[in-house]
Each structure stands twice: as structure tokens, then as C-alpha cells.
């Protein structure tokens, strides 16, 4: 069985639980940007944006590099494969459970139709 790093997962799920941070990731997926660019784009103070980028950076979803006076942000180094795998396993469990529930529900529907017909007769 593949070993998943839970600490890493926690950090990235926490990072992704915020709409602004998801937006920042999308933005950086298209092009690198400085924190100033991002702050302007998201209509936010420089301090506010620094905090969001900090969370993303600690989760390994974004890396930053200081060139002169400007800090450039880009996607990486981690990707979201582990998160996707976690969700997929969880989804499969519920999917199997719901397939069985579907069977029970169909059975109840048939029974109701039969009972309804009997009552009318």
C-alpha cells in the first residue's frame, strides 16, 4: 500500500479550504506573478496576500523566489496527486454504499407501486 504523508495532506487541504488561495493557485497556474501583482488582482492588502502565499508555500503548493526587491511566486513543488488519491478512495467507499442503497430504494419503489395497485383493485 502506498504511504501517504498525512502532515502534507493536512497542510494542503487547509491551504485549499480558502477561496482566495484557490484563486491564487489558478492564477499562478497560468503565469508567475509577484505578491504585489496578486494583491492587486485580488483586491487585497500586501500583508493579506503575503499571509495567503505563506500558507500555500508551507503546504508546498507554491514556491517563491526573491529577485532584487520583488518576490515572484509560482506553482509547485508539490502537486495535488495525493489529495486526489485520498478523495478518490473516500468516494469509492460511498459509491459502493450508494449502489446498494439504490437497490433498496428501487425495491421500495416497486413495492409501493404493487401496493398502490392492490389498493385500487
Amino acid at each position: 500500500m502506498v504511504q501517504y504523508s498525512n502532515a502534507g495532506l493536512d497542510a494542503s487541504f487547509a491551504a485549499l479550504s480558502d477561496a482566495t488561495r484557490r484563486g491564487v493557485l489558478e492564477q499562478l497556474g497560468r503565469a508567475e506573478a509577484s505578491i504585489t501583482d496578486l494583491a492587486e488582482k485580488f483586491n487585497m492588502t500586501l500583508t493579506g496576500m503575503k499571509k495567503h502565499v505563506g500558507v500555500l508555500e508551507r503546504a508546498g503548493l507554491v514556491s517563491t523566489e526573491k529577485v532584487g526587491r520583488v518576490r515572484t511566486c509560482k506553482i509547485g513543488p508539490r502537486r495535488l496527486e495525493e489529495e486526489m488519491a485520498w478523495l478518490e478512495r473516500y468516494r469509492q467507499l460511498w459509491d459502493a454504499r450508494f449502489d446498494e442503497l439504490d437497490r433498496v430504494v428501487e425495491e421500495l419503489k416497486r413495492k409501493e407501486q404493487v401496493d398502490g395497485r392492490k389498493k385500487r383493485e
Partner: protein
Amino acid sequence: MKNRTTVERKSERETVVTRTFNAPARIVFEAWTKPELFKKWWVPKSMGMTLVSCEMDVRTGGTYRLVFGQGMAFFGRYTEVTPHSRLVWTNEEGGDDASVTTVTFEEKEGKTLLVVSELYPSKEALDAAGGAAEALVETFQQLDELLVTLGASAGRA
């Protein structure tokens, strides 16, 4: 046609699962609240586990207890029961750190949108639940393969 099951991790402590069922809410609700029906589907056959007893006192403040042949038990309390639309219960087998499950049934044109939200006391607890799901899925896959084999031989017979 089979409907899609979607999963979203809302935060580090909460997951939300949704699926549409082709039946009115009262029927889907019945399958969640009658123990003899609930035990038919809650533990998918492919899990390889058996429910030996399923006691459910489905009313606000009522308790439930599911006991597995393997000696495991799951229990807790219904904190909210609104017929055909909403069920909330606690899962207390983990001690003080109870997780809370909320199920809503939303009927639209004869179909029911089911939303199951699981809120854990901590991210560690949710990760542990993910670990359990991982073990189960592995069992499903093995059994799926077996079923395909059995299905194929039955088809030839």
C-alpha cells in the same frame, strides 16, 4: 442509469458526499431510518464484513448501535430527525471526540438529492477515517475482480 457520487473535502475537518437517487425523498428517507433496510446497504457486500445487529431508535435524542461480526461496534445518538428531509447523528465510538454526520434529502421532480456531511473533531480524526476508507476500497477492488470472474462463469453456464 447510475448517478454520480461526488466528494468534496470542505475543510480539514469536513467532507461532503452527494448523490441523486431516482425516487422521492420519503422512500430514500425510509431506507435510512428502518433498521432492516439500513443494514441491507450500509455495509456494502463487497466490504467482507457482516452486521450482526442493527438497533436504531430514530427520533431526536434516540440512540443507535451497529455491531459487526468482527467484534466492532459503532454507536451514537440522533440529535435531529426531521422526517423526509434531515437526519443528524453523532458517532461516539471514538470517545469524547465524537464526529457528527448530517444527511439532507432534497426532493425535486420525483428525484432526491442526498447530501452527507461528516464533521470530525480534528483533522487527525478525519485522516484516520480516510485510512479506513483506503482499506475498504482495497477490499472492494479484490471483490470486484472476484465478482467479474463469477459473473463470467455464471454467464457461460
